[in-house]
């Protein structure tokens, strides 16, 4: 297990060094996007419209933060990850079109996203579910917010972060996916458990 401190923008070469089970910390810019923002970003791309921010080399964070406005400044109060599987239907196109290098969330993603990560060079960093204060403390400032019309949780929040993590690399750019491996192992263990409990199939 290696530990990497990465600064955005992250290059393809840099991200390809990172392997599953490594731990990464990110300094620089991360952008939140949930279902709605993913959908809109891909629509923009189709129409040839530019996004409010160039995502190349950045990290996209599956998160609907709790934010508060102090004066005219936004502050991230709590910013834990949301379940990533809902974004599985968008993520391969998202990685391909916008060249994000890190996808941050919880719960993991499937085969299609894993393939896109291998092809275009990106990793999935699992942020501990529920660890909202840990995340919020690594967010140094809210640079800006776009697409607020989608609602606070769904908007694009552009965060300036310092040592954001730990992110457990659960999918790397070489086709490895811890969540799929764990699922396979769990299936094997299930038979042993049934046996131990004296159960038949």
């Amino acid at each position, binding site marked *: 297990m290696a530990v990497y401190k990465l600064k955005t923008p992250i290059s393809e070469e840099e991200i390809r060094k990172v392997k599953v089970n490594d731990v990464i910390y990110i300094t620089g810019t991360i952008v939140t996007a949930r279902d709605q923002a993913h959908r809109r970003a891909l629509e923009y791309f189709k129409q040839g419209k530019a996004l409010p921010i160039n995502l190349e080399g950045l990290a996209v964070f599956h998160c609907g933060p*709790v934010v508060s406005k102090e004066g005219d400044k936004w502050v991230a109060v709590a910013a*834990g990850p949301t379940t990533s599987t809902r974004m599985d239907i968008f993520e391969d196109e998202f990685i391909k079109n916008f060249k994000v290098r890190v996808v941050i969330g919880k719960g993991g993603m499937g085969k299609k996203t894993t393939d896109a990560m291998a092809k275009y060079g990106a990793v999935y960093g699992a942020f501990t579910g529920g660890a*909202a204060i840990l995340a919020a403390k690594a967010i140094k400032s809210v640079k800006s917010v776009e697409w607020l019309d989608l609602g606070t949780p769904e908007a694009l929040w552009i965060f300036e972060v310092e040592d954001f993590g730990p992110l457990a690399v659960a999918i790397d750019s070489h086709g490895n996916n811890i*969540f799929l491996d764990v699922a396979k192992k769990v299936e094997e*263990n299930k038979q042993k458990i049934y046996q131990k*409990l004296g159960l038949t199939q």
Partner: protein
Amino acid sequence: MDMAKVIEDVAFNILKQAVIYLPEDVKQALKKAYAEETSETGRTQLKAILDNIELAEKYQAPVCQDTGTIIFYVKAGAEAKNLDKLEEPLIKAVRRATKEIPLRPNAVDPFTQKNSGDNTGRFIPYLNWEIASGESIELTVMTKGGGSENVCLTGMLVPGEGINGLKKFVIDAVIKAGAQPCPPTILGVAMGGGSDIAIKLAKKALLRPLNEPNPNPEIAKLEKEIFEAANMTGIGPMGLGGKTTVLGVHIDYAYRHPASFPAAVAFNCWAARRASAQIDADGNVEYLTHKMRW
């Protein structure tokens, strides 16, 4: 003394205790799991959880951004006065807590999809009533996260399979839930009664501290057996692999109809938030779960 005000303040305080400070037994269980976990990736997750718990206490902030659905358990003394007026101060406390702590507004009208914005709405906060003897009122709050709620399960098992059917039902539920409920989780398990009774008992079993096995040795044995089996799955912290999948299993039961075997599994995530206090007839308050904090 204004009893309604006392109740409102106590409800506000236990809500605040619950969302910021995890109960001592849960913290101890997480520390033990961190010491014993052998998967390196699993350890990073448990460490992050422990760090996050410390930060929440330091900054007086909710330990998780999902501050959950608010559920009260009221154990009301039969001699206590004005029980019919208990609900209003509880609702007021929830509104205040939502604004002041703050809590995430988590009450949505299922017809209009509109969020009430203050964690209240039809039947929310939900009140579970129990009548006890005496004049005091014991108030417990549980704030129940959505991720772990989404994998709760009720099933009507085959009576002929007996306890084995229950074991399989629970293990299959844990495997199906995978990373979703933010493991390590706590399992409330119940059988018998009816479909509604089983899930109610299962959820209530989540209130029992982790270091207290069921007083009935037969059930305690079953709790241990399912606990060990669930931790053999290899799901691990946050589903990233490891031997810490559940922190505890609490089982309860009711007698069943000869033809039915209702069973239920209620999941609670590592952010297992609960707090209790007792109010006597004179308005004196004793905080039961978070003594050192007040």
